[in-house]
């Protein structure tokens, strides 16, 4: 019984959003649903934090090998949360004279999050080089075509490749051939999304039941 109501609720919400494009009188409803959606998505972010909390507390209770690291995680999360909610998220000035409670949130962001986010992703540069040496083989004509295109684009994108007609070839690959291939993928993906959306709205697929 609840399932039928859920399917109907999903359908009505989706229909309201679609209908408002065709019936201006429903614009106010679309605006209201959009604002409510923003609020509900904000609450769902709390779920993520809650999951991290539960998993790490359980690790500590079970005396897992990673217990010291879990303690570090929980302390860091708590400090960041309290400094942001209680003392605010004021950005630091250019010259950092001292660390205060008011600016602690931004200092932690600049000192820990910024360098570590980019360092985590920069590790991929090393792995891509390793993969380029060990795995990229021109085994078939198609793979050869892929590698030749990659060479021309890699050369054309950097100042050292600014000779002969390399930049123009790179531009042709990007703006003509790549555009054609990517457009086909985009059209295919759009058709796929529309069919999945219809399945969800009509209750054939119910991802909210998981």
């Amino acid at each position, binding site marked *: 019984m609840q399932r039928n109501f859920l399917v109907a609720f999903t359908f009505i919400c989706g229909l309201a959003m679609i209908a408002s494009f065709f019936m201006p009188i429903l*614009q106010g409803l679309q605006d209201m649903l*959009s604002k409510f959606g923003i609020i509900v998505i904000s609450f769902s972010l709390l779920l993520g934090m809650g999951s991290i909390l539960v998993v790490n507390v359980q690790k500590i209770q079970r005396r897992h090998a990673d217990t010291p690291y879990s303690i570090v995680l929980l302390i860091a999360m708590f400090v960041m949360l309290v400094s942001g909610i209680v003392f605010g998220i004021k*950005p630091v000035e250019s010259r950092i004279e001292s660390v205060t409670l008011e600016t602690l949130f*931004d200092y932690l962001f600049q000192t820990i999050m910024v*360098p570590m986010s*980019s360092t985590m992703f920069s590790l991929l540069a*090393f792995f891509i080089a390793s993969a380029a*040496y060990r795995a990229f083989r021109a085994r078939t004509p198609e793979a050869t075509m892929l590698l030749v295109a990659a*060479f021309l684009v890699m050369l054309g994108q950097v100042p050292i490749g600014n000779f002969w007609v390399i930049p123009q070839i790179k531009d042709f690959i990007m703006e003509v051939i790549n*555009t054609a291939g990517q457009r086909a993928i985009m059209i295919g993906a759009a058709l796929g999304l529309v069919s999945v959306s219809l399945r969800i709205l009509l209750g054939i697929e119910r991802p909210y039941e998981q």
Partner: protein
Amino acid sequence: MLDKLVNLDRRIIFVMVALAVLIPLLFPLHMPIAPLPGGPVDRAYQYLDKRVPEGGTVLMSFDYDPATFVELDPMAVAMVKHCFQRNIKVVAMALWPQGATMAENVFKMVKDTSKFELVPVDRNGVTRSVVIPAGKTAKYYGKDYVNLGYKAGQILVIQSMAKDLQNTFPLDSQGVSIKQFNLTKNIRGFDGFDLLIDLSAGDPGIPIWVQVAATQFNKPLIGGCTAVSAPGFTPYLQAGQLKGLMGGMRGAADYEVLLKAPGTASRGMDAQSIAHLLIIFFIVVSNIFYFSTRRREGK
């Protein structure tokens, strides 16, 4: 010997990559950067330079996080400098949580590396009294630029702010009502902006701005993205849904060159060149080894 080279320890490869990046940074080669006339970056530059009127207003969405600031911050800094040079006002916002702080960082970098002195406001929205250094032009928060902060909701945020900015972003990133600022108090929605700029590192990003703002509301949109996603957005460029596109560090470097304000992106292009040559070398050499090994086994 051939087998040893084919199965080279990957840590040797890591060291070679690190050196290929480190040496050009320490000993710059100053290779000239030449933006392609009529190319995607040139189109973005020309649009902001010629089609947005002086005194106009631009909305800049910072949809990226610290992981990709190396590619996107230089673009943002160059575009904000360009706007300020032409007395164009900038309204910043973010669909990614860290984007709001990235916007603040960009404004700080503009202040530190240009002739503009950005004057902030306090928690109550009152302009701070700041001494403007000689030779610098003041840009005031609330009059010349505002940071609306982050809003969760992705496509719903764009849809909502298109018609009702005041209720979608009632407060700025510091919690001050946007009705207090001259720049934002009369902006109802997208009709208050001459151009939209989206700097994106993934989802939410350029696709939803194109789908809603550029297509549904017919607003001119310029995109800046990481190099990873740039090839996927060329159909939007060709279709005219994007007026210009800057992809990766090269896109940022091209914009800096066009603006005649070289920055971090231009400095990084030497290292990029040598590193690219190294990757091409790895692929060519490894394929030579591979085919040699196969021929030897075939015999």
